[in-house]
């Protein structure tokens, strides 16, 4: 009989790896193995010398909370049936948790600016350049979207946050400029097809390291090789920057100027179709007041018409905002071109917008791109002095005069080089903003004469070159009738003694807002009281007469019934100068059959 040799072989116990470094309170893994030539019958069990614990089931070491580096040796013990015992050790260095430190997260914010192809007046995507996103709110958000910090980018597009390391954050940039000092600025670019949501760009959520970090964000145009292939993130910031540049020019001539709140409505859905603005049917790029808020609507319809990079269009529409919010505008809007003979109020507002775009952008060539790949376009040279219909009713004449007043390049009759300051001064002069007349080139020039440094003869040379010579805000003495003898004087005097004053509404140059459609009157109300206004048709046919009465730019009476051939209304008026426009409704109603219609007008105290 053979007696088995006694089992003297101890179990082999190992950790792999045999050393760990684990941060205070954190965990680390090491695989514990215990083997024996027969079998491990007890253990392994683990004990650690200096804190921390090792979980045999999960092979995870959990460090104790330490404030200094602390070494803990964990010994694993296993036994077999013969009582042999083996051990293995895991040496763990427990390190204190890093103290969260303030680090700087900073970066540069840029957007794609797409320039023009000056040969085609279309956009030149190949020439796209990054530009800084200036003066925009920058937010630091945590992973849950909570805003932790806010700042504003500087004029180089740079921003900076001081933040604790270890946080998971992202950077977001909003498409707005909000300032309260030294100038009030409140402008934002929103998506009108998404409940006027403010556009923003943002980066990814990532942990702030223990050293300073740079996070640069770029809003790309989204343009591929031949078409848009990505998100058009640059568009809102391009619009914002164009407008901010415009504000800067006004601030340069008036350090205290404030800009009341306005919104820019832009969307890739904004199309050249009238209808529901919330569906993008904005008609075309335009300015209006909606719900009491000035809004600039900008087209974004790829392949048809986009205007986010058409800087002259954007500044033109800002010009209307400027008139509306910092000055006064009596324009009745509507379609127009440089070659049209227009209602003088429209001619002035549109000529101003065109000229302003040349002034602000230091480029007298107004360009507007459209069509497939935005590759087509047209231009208007506001430095041009020759139009088919020069005069006080011409948008072309207005832009020529205003730009020549501004620029330092003398051409033709232009010897004036005044810059923006006196032009701004005239717009904000009470003689213009509160003029008794309508806001036309005449009212503007009267207020311009109040500004320092203006030489009357230089201004007169420009107006004479554009074939008009009326004076005062009412254009007194004007001799250019614009091809319609009936249109002089610019304002017909309407006595208040019941004397009939004849006039005609004429459609020679189109309808709604064209020269001849609406006749201006000046009325001196001798004393406050009730006055009866009667407009009676004197020519045959339908003519629905209508009229509007104003005092200092405020409409105080409307004669707008649908009664054919005659309109009578009584108004209680204050004493003083009033103006009135009167017209045949058929000449201002889009789509109507137009025609020349004549009337007698009487006003009589009641």
């Amino acid at each position, binding site marked *: 009989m053979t007696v088995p040799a006694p089992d003297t072989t101890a179990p082999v116990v190992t950790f792999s790896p045999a050393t760990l470094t684990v941060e205070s309170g954190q965990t680390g893994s090491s695989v514990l193995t215990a083997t024996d030539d027969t079998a491990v019958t007890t253990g392994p069990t683990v004990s650690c010398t200096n804190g921390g614990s090792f979980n045999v089931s999960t092979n995870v070491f959990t460090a104790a909370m330490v404030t200094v580096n602390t070494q803990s040796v964990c010994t694993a013990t296993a036994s077999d049936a013969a009582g042999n015992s083996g051990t293995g050790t895991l040496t763990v260095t427990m390190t204190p948790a890093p103290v969260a430190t303030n680090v700087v997260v900073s970066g540069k914010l840029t957007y794609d600016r797409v320039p023009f192809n000056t040969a085609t007046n279309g956009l030149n995507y190949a020439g796209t350049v990054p530009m800084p996103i200036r003066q925009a709110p920058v937010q630091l958000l945590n992973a849950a979207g909570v805003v932790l910090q806010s700042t504003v980018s500087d004029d180089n597009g740079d921003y900076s946050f001081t933040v604790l390391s270890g946080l998971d954050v992202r950077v977001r940039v909003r498409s707005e400029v909000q300032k309260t000092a030294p100038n009030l600025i409140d402008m934002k670019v929103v998506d009108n097809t998404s409940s006027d949501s403010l556009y923003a760009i943002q980066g990814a959520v990532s942990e702030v390291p223990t050293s300073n970090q740079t996070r640069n964000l770029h809003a790309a145009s989204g343009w591929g090789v031949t078409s848009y292939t990505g998100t058009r993130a640059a568009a809102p910031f391009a619009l914002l920057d164009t407008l901010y540049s415009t504000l800067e020019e006004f601030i340069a001539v008036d350090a205290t100027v404030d800009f009341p709140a306005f919104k820019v409505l832009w969307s890739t859905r904004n199309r050249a179709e009238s209808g529901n603005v919330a569906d993008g049917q904005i008609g075309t790029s335009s300015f209006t007041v909606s719900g009491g808020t000035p809004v600039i609507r900008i087209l974004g319809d790829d392949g048809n018409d986009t205007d986010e990079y058409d800087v002259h269009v954007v500044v033109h529409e800002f010009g209307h905002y400027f008139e509306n919010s910092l000055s006064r505008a009596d324009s*009745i809007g509507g379609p127009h071109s440089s*070659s049209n003979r227009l209602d003088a109020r429209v001619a002035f507002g549109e000529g101003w917008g065109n000229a302003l775009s040349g002034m602000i952008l230091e480029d007298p060539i107004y360009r507007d791109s459209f069509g497939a790949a935005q590759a087509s376009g047209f231009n208007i040279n506001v430095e041009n002095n020759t139009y088919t219909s020069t005069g006080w009713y011409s948008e072309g004449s207005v832009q020529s005069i205003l730009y020549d007043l501004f620029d330092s390049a003398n051409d033709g009759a232009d010897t004036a080089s005044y810059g923006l300051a006196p032009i701004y001064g005239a717009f904000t002069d009470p003689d213009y903003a509160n003029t008794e007349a309508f806001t036309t080139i005449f009212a503007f020039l009267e207020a311009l004469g109040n500004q320092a440094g203006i030489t009357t003869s230089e201004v007169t040379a420009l107006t004479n070159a554009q074939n008009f010579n009326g004076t005062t805000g009412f254009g007194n003495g004007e001799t250019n009738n614009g091809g319609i003898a009936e249109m002089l004087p610019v304002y017909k005097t309407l006595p208040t003694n019941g004397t009939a004053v004849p006039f005609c509404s004429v459609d020679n140059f189109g309808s*709604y807002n064209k020269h001849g459609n609406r006749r201006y009157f000046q009325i001196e109300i001798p004393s406050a009281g009730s006055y009866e206004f009667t407009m009676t048709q004197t020519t045959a046919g339908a003519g629905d007469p209508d009229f509007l009465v104003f005092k200092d730019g405020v409409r105080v009476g*409307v004669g707008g019934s649908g009664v054919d051939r005659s309109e009578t209304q009584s108004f209680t008026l204050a004493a003083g100068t009033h103006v009135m426009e009167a017209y045949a409704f058929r000449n201002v109603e889009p789509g109507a059959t137009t025609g020349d219609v004549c009337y007698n007008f009487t006003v009589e105290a009641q």
Partner: protein
Amino acid sequence: MTRLTKLAISSVLIGGLAACAAATADEELAATSVAPAPASKTIAHVATVKPGASVTMTSVLPKSMTSGSYQTVRLRFDESYVNGIMTVTVVPTAELSLFGSAGVRTFNMAVPGSHVWDLDVKADADGVYFLNVFAEAQGEARSFSVRLDMGTTTQKMFQNAVPADGELTDGGKIRVMEAEEIIQ
């Protein structure tokens, strides 16, 4: 607005004061112009529009347009010039075809009144399509867009036809757009 049958008229009007254009001759028109009420009756705040050709366009569409066959779309142009040539270019969006190849026509602006162009268009599948229309006169241009709903259409079809960029977050107050980010 008068609700009639068969045809729909839709105006692309860019004046602040605009009215339903003349759907007068055909008593089977449904006027769907969304322009403001007539000037003398309701005075709305005006819109001052960007410079360009002084042209307005009105589109008259069949009330119900079906896919798979040609449909006639009438485009009517009103301009404010006394002479010269107006060139109109029509470009259909993808999957929409024009009968014949000519997408360009010229009109003599010395001829008074509206200028009319009847176009036959076809789409093979139901959906929302657009005609891009460009009018050029005396060196300036104006763009128009005409929405065509072919067959049974849905809001999703419209959204697919003109998708909006970005992702809506923050309760609808922020439209976040993708940024290119470099972290160093």
